[in-house]
């Protein structure tokens, strides 16, 4: 597994980029931001040693949902690719449990969102066919779904 060192303010990975690895923080601190470097920049989290970053987008095959930036000089990270996961977990089984818990929660949440999305498609279809007005719930769902798709398409 590769070990990488970063200086303060160096970008580790960028929001929207394709992810193929995660990082175990050995030393230093990592800041997580959305819209990094723009006026809309939002700070999400501050992670330090023994925490893992980027695991979900690697496992989900999604583009990175945020930018990770080294907050200190001498921030050291272990880079772990999907192939190296087994070895990594054998050494750190507590990380395996942590990640599996996140996966489990994410599966449940995504499933719930999916059901709601199907319901919205159904209700919009019904509203069109019967020339009915769209409920407030439906309008709000439509906005959310269009934004989700719009963001993904943008990447």
């Amino acid at each position, binding site marked *: 597994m590769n070990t990488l060192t970063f200086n303060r303010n160096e970008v580790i990975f960028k929001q929207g980029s394709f992810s193929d690895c995660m990082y175990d923080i050995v030393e230093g601190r990592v800041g997580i931001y959305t819209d990094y470097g723009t006026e809309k920049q939002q700070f999400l989290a501050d992670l330090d040693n023994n925490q893992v970053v980027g695991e979900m987008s690697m496992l989900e095959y999604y583009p990175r949902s945020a930018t990770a930036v080294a907050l200190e000089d001498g921030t050291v990270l272990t880079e772990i690719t999907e192939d190296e996961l087994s070895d990594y977990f054998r050494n750190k089984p507590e990380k395996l449990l942590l990640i599996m818990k996140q996966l489990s929660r994410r599966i449940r949440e995504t499933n719930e969102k999916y059901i709601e999305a199907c319901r919205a498609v*159904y209700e919009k279809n019904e509203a069109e066919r019967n020339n009915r007005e769209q409920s407030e719930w439906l309008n709000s769902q439509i906005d959310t779904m269009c934004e989700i798709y*719009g963001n993904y398409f943008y990447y």
Partner: protein
Amino acid sequence: MMDIRTYRRGEVIFRQGDVGNCMYDIQEGKVGIFHDYKGPDEKQLAELFPNKIFGEMGLLDSAPRSATAVALEDSTVLHVIPEDDFYSYFEENPTMVLLLMQQMCSRLRRTSKDYLEACRAMYETVEAEKSGSEKSKTLKDKILKFCRRYKDFNYQAHT
């Protein structure tokens, strides 16, 4: 000390809606996973054989069980694994646990993809509406698919 339990044919292992806190590794026998077991909408979702882990969401998430698990044969033997036993179980069966994690990833990717497709169908519907154009046949088929999904939504056997 491993927690090994034996079940008779027809015995319920856990029920849909119950709070879960452990997962199971099938040593012998057969387990059926059912939606609405013994109810009007009963549907068997899966049949599981030895060397299969199920109920992992209960251990990982403590979420209510999304389906009922029933022993389908006499002498169905299960290794019951609560969170406290997770590490020792992983030490003894690393391949099975890693395989389980991979399966969970696949499941997440599939559901994410489905969700994104539904969002896309909605987006394209709205675009067609805005431009006053006719929906393509592909789009109409997709809308039908999601309508059907909504109507007969059975939670998958992810207990």
